[in-house]
């Protein structure tokens, strides 16, 4: 006497059978069960109908489709990608890179500019011919320019005398 399998135990095998993936032994089990089970027969028919419903609109669409200009578009886009000059490649990269979206780079650039300004002010304000020196006075005249430095630490005053400009020094 052959053992009868319940519908639930045959459920996964039914799908394998429907998909033609069942082994010979599994096929035999399912077919034996189907002989006596109308519900499972209906379930298989439902799967078949569902398959047809999924497939038929797509097949119809494919039959109507003549793929106008598809290959030409593909060729064109590949050609455009290949012919891009280096600066345009960079530009394309900039366009797609999230770091270079306007909302990101404009504030970042503005912040960098401000920081640079402040930093240069700090550096050049304190930088002089003599470290720890402050310019006391700078005097310009027709023949000579004079710069007077006070070196605070050494308590020394340095006086530089500059000759007049090079233009004036050139022979006529």
């Amino acid at each position: 006497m052959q053992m009868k399998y319940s519908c639930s135990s045959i459920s996964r095998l039914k799908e394998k059978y429907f998909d033609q993936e069942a082994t010979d032994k599994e096929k035999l089990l399912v077919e034996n069960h189907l002989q006596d089970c109308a519900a499972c027969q209906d379930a298989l028919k439902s799967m078949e109908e569902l398959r047809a419903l999924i497939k038929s609109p797509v097949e119809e669409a494919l039959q109507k489709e003549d793929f106008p200009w598809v290959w030409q578009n593909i060729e064109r886009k590949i050609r455009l990608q290949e012919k891009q000059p280096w600066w345009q490649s960079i530009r394309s990269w900039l366009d797609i890179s999230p770091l270079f979206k306007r909302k990101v780079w404009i504030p970042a650039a503005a912040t960098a500019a401000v920081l640079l300004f402040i930093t240069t002010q700090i550096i050049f304000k304190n930088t002089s011919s003599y470290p720890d020196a402050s310019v006391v006075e700078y005097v310009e005249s027709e023949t000579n320019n004079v710069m007077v430095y006070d070196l605070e630490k050494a308590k020394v005053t340095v006086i530089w005398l500059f000759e007049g400009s090079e233009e004036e020094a050139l022979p006529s």
Partner: protein
Amino acid sequence: MDHEETEMISRCQQGDQEALKDIFDKYHKKVYRIAYGVVRQREDALDIVQEVFIKLFRSIKNFQGRSHFYTYLYRMVMNTAIDHTRKSGKKFASSLDEEGSFEPSDGAEKGPERVFLQKELEERVKRAMDKLPAEQKVALIFRDMEGLSYQEMAEAMGCSIGTVMSRLHYGRKKMQELLKDYVMLHGQSRGGQNSPRL
């Protein structure tokens, strides 16, 4: 993979666009079928076909022949189509109401009415497919439309055969649940004749 295809792929890997054209001629309909199965819109499906072949030309150098070429291609189509739906964020639009408010017919099988009902059923199927998770949708497309074996599906989807079977099982179950109410109404109005039994 036959010799002709191997040769085509090799030429394409060296940048030969004629080889890409040969691959396009061989596979564009299959690619379109999968793309259309996912997005169910002609223009989107054509965009996806173009995108896939452009990507293929760029990335074919990475194909080492460890899997079948068509499963490599199908995987590319699957990923491109899913990305496309995510980027476009399109919801399925239909003139039909959400809750199956269709009025049962008086039972007479008129030509235009039958066409309308068929269209309505197709819309319902599209809507139901859109509600499936992407992996289940793709599993149904690969199996029920393309007829791939479980092994081929596992290669194309990058998962085990067990996972493939699970996705198919839950995808089909969900589709039957989603279409159940429609079919029950339809079956009652037409006395169960010529109505899909799901």
